[in-house]
């Protein structure tokens, strides 16, 4: 199934910026600096990720290698590479064209970093507060600035997502063994102005809108810490891929919601448009965001009759 408007001829994948070597841990004075250093770090290992929501729990383990803002994830059907605006997987590849810079929402404060030990290594624990509650914790390796683990909490303080390295190898010498080299087409998601979604939703800013996949339009939102995309699709969508999900009542309306270890998916229809939301935002943010997006509603009677008559 072809993706987007533009299909490029095989382009050599630049094994870009493979920064092998230690990154001296600079004194990072704010969260942004810590996260930037984490992106530039180099490490390999297995990562376990666990999410829970309303009694539903999912858990997964993946092998990863990360260097120079690229991450390689091993899977049964092949490796996936993510980073720098592109994803190369076994069933296709996509690059987003152009992007806007955002900033960290001022609802977050960082508490004093604490020196701790993690996986037998010297590490720093970052605590990110949102108002009175702890929203997230991140453990950073002192030697490599790599993230060793993280926790994300729901608004009521309960643990929502937990992720940690099961084992950890800093600065591995073997990297990206399966790097695509000159092979593989990829699709480009071009900038679009066709989104009907608001520019902000509960502290999240809509930074970019892209075409695709297919006839969908993607709006990307972030608050500097969490992010999500909302895809708009004309008409109804087949919800078979979301069979593991369940109906959730959020803000008084019914949505189809599915949890994966690292993300939450929400699918609904409003009028003649279907929406698919995917992101890593915590449940209370999700509810507040959904309140500012088009609400679920049936197409009106006239529209239904019309469609019934004419297909």
């Amino acid at each position, binding site marked *: 199934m072809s993706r987007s408007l533009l299909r490029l001829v095989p382009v050599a994948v630049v094994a870009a910026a493979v920064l092998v070597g230690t990154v001296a841990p600079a004194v990072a004075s704010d969260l942004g600096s810590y996260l930037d250093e984490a992106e530039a770090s180099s490490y390999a290992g297995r990562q376990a990720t666990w999410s829970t929501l309303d009694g539903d729990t999912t858990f997964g383990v993946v092998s990863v290698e990360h260097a120079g803002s690229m991450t390689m994830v091993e899977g049964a059907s092949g490796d996936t590479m993510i980073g720098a605006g592109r994803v190369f997987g076994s069933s296709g590849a996509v690059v987003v064209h152009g992007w806007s810079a955002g900033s960290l929402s001022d609802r977050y404060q960082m508490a004093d970093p604490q020196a701790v030990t993690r996986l037998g290594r010297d590490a720093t624990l970052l605590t990110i507060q949102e108002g009175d509650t702890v929203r997230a914790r991140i453990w950073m390796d002192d030697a490599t600035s790599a993230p060793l683990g993280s926790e994300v909490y729901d608004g009521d303080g309960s643990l929502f997502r937990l992720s940690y390295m099961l084992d950890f190898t800093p600065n591995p010498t073997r990297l990206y063994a399966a790097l695509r080299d000159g092979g593989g087409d990829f699709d480009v998601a071009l900038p679009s102005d066709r989104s009907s979604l608001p520019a902000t939703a509960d502290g999240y800013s809509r930074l970019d809108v892209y075409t695709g996949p297919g006839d969908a339009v993607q709006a990307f939102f972030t608050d500097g810490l969490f992010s999500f995309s909302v895809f708009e699709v004309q008409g109804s969508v087949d919800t078979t891929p979301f069979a593991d999900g369940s109906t959730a009542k959020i803000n008084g309306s019914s949505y189809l919601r599915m949890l994966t270890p690292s*993300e939450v998916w929400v699918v609904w229809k409003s009028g003649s448009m279907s929406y698919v939301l995917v992101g890593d935002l915590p449940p209370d943010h999700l509810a507040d965001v959904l309140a500012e997006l088009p609400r679920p509603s049936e197409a009106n009677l006239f529209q239904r009759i019309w469609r019934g008559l004419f297909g």
Partner: protein
Amino acid sequence: MARVKHPDDHCANQDVLSAYLDGELRPGELDEVVAHLTDCLDCVAEFHRIKEMRAALRTLPDLELPERLLPSAHPGPELSALLDGELATIEQEIVLLHLGECDACRSEFHELDAARTAIRSLPGLEPPEFLMTRRDAARARHRSRWRVVTAAAAGMAAAVAIAVGVFGGPPPTSPIDVSQFSDQHNARASLEPGFGVIPVFLSQGEAP
């Protein structure tokens, strides 16, 4: 000795007797209480009854805290139960938080996971009974739906067959290739600074 008639509110306010026993009298109350107890037989009797009850309560056995409740306690059978989705919600969180901090249990957990996957992938074999005895039914109160996606099976979700959509029969539905939506979101998200949480892709049919 004649019983002195006391105003109603005095004897009605007997909780001062407990306060007296607990050393919690307010300033000035002590003299009043002592004076009253000198004269009022009802209150004296009550005082002794309460004193006795208080003493009985305070000599109830002080129970030991079960060691397994300490955060540092290493989960044993709980690890298998965790993999099988048999743990109550709170216990699940505690075990997972412990795993995040304990190297030894993490290795054991991974070995259990690997063994379980290996056993379950053998053709024609019945999955074994739980490695440990099944927990008492009264314990597994908040049973969660549990789906484990293991490294061996993680991969991109397959493109979906065209099917009739949930939102009504007659209107045509667009098929969704979840992997494409996931990829395009992750492609853009990869440009943002993040936690280092690697997207774990769906693997269909991975229910326990």
